[in-house]
């Protein structure tokens, strides 16, 4: 102590209890326990409030019936049937469901397109299997002859794979598609259109001459192709479109070929395919006798009556069955179901 403070006596030394420190530590423990209890209480309160709120919200949802869009429900059920009907190798069987085995690849492409446009995304494994099988069926595109059923199989596979590529780009598939588009360009005829290249082309007309249906399909494929470098594609598309425009008649009908000996009107798929380029130009309703035609019709003008008519023909298992359909003997139940699903969700057409 400072010498100036010498006058101050040393203070007595008060005795400190031996429990002094233990009592402080005990208070600290008590403090922690109390704080933990408060935290627990707050958490419990939050959980209680949240569960009460969730229950109230859930009850509110229960009280208000969900108004499910009928067309979504119908398409979802159809897709479910298609998934069930898929074979282990990813394809669909046409021969045992009313159709013809020769169209199995094309019908599998339609089914895959339906899965791709499903209202709820389908299992990725199911889709990948289907896509893989389509890629296998394409084989070597530059060697494809464009004959009868093979033409449809190939067109539909190409169309579907192009849609797949837009959603899931893949280098292998890009190579396949580029070869396919190049093959199509090589087959363009001198008048700008495309036609069947076989001797017995679906019973319409023999030998090499441009055809509105084939030309429309190839123009459609070129117009909607994914971002790929296909030299000459734009020029070929312009020539093909010009050829198609020339097939339109003044009364709105469409000629199948240059000779005008076969005319397509509202009862034909071709009429509606061409009409896609001038949406809303005409009205009509679905016929129920040509799912292919009805699909294009709903792609042009989709009315509630059309959708309802298609839904009413759906069977309880989710598929569509109609042996009276124009293409039933070729595509059968899988074709009809895929086209009906796509009519309900008419995108990717």
């Amino acid at each position: 102590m400072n010498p100036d403070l010498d006058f101050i006596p040393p203070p007595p030394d008060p005795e400190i209890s031996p429990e002094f420190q233990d009592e402080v530590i005990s208070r600290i423990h008590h403090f922690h326990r109390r704080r933990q209890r408060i935290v627990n209480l707050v958490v419990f309160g939050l959980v209680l409030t949240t569960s009460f709120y969730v229950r109230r919200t859930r009850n509110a949802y229960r009280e208000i019936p969900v108004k499910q869009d009928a067309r979504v429900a119908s398409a979802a059920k159809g897709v479910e049937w298609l998934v069930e009907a898929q074979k282990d190798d990813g394809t669909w069987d046409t021969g045992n469901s009313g159709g013809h085995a020769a169209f199995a690849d094309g019908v599998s492409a339609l089914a895959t397109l339906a899965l791709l446009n499903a209202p709820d995304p389908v299992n990725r494994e199911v889709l990948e299997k289907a896509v893989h099988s389509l890629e296998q069926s394409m084989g070597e595109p530059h060697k494809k002859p464009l004959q009868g059923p093979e033409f449809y199989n190939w067109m539909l596979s190409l169309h579907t794979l192009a849609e797949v590529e837009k959603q899931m780009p893949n280098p292998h598939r890009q190579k396949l598609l580029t070869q396919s588009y190049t093959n199509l360009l090589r087959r363009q005829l001198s008048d700008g259109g495309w036609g069947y290249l076989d001797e017995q082309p679906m019973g319409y007309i023999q030998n090499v001459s441009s055809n509105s249906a084939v030309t429309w399909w190839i123009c459609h494929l070129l117009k909607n192709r994914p971002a790929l470098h296909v030299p000459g594609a734009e020029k070929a598309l312009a020539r093909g479109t010009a050829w198609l425009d020339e097939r339109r008649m003044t009364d709105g009908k469409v000629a199948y070929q240059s000779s005008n000996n076969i005319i397509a009107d509202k009862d034909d798929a071709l009429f509606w395919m061409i009409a896609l380029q001038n949406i809303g130009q005409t009205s009509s309703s679905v016929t129920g006798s040509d799912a292919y035609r009805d699909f294009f019709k709903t792609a042009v003008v989709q009315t509630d009556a059309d959708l309802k008519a298609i839904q009413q023909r759906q069977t309880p298992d989710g598929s569509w069955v109609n042996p009276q359909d124009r293409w039933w003997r070729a595509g059968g139940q899988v074709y009809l179901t895929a086209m009906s699903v796509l009519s309900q969700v008419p995108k990717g057409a």
Partner: protein
Amino acid sequence: MPETDEELMRRVAKSHDGQAFRELMNRHQKLLVNHFIRRGVYQEYEDLAQETFFKIYKARKRYRTNASFRSWMFTIAQRVWIDHLRKSGRRKTREDAFKQEPQPAFLSTQPMQGHDLYWALDQLPETHRDVVVHAVFDQLSHGETAQILGIPEGTVKSRLHNGLKQLREIFNTENPA
């Protein structure tokens, strides 16, 4: 080399180190108890010292690592003291404590004795006594005392000078040479 108070407090703040906290109590419990006795707490001085340690623990996260631990401890003790005064109404004198049952053991047996430090401190004005207790007995610097009591450093110096002068007069009067 033993750890400094500041190092121990850092351990307490960082990792709730109970051993470090006990060591801090070992070092300062007597100092705190005497601090409260000198300020006139003759019965509950242990309670207030414990309360101070408890508040130190609660405020451990706010301890600034560059601050002196002793200075920080007495800042908290000052708050405990103010809370105590607010609750008990007024400060007790040595006479009050002497009349209480049981009497504190460390007080002299007579109610008033000239050499009794606590009695002498009781004679000082409260403002002077606070400064003397902090600056002399708690051995804090003038700056720290000023900070704890919330007064200018110059006021600490003048009150300390006057307080010690009065204290010397009390002792000289009561204990003439």
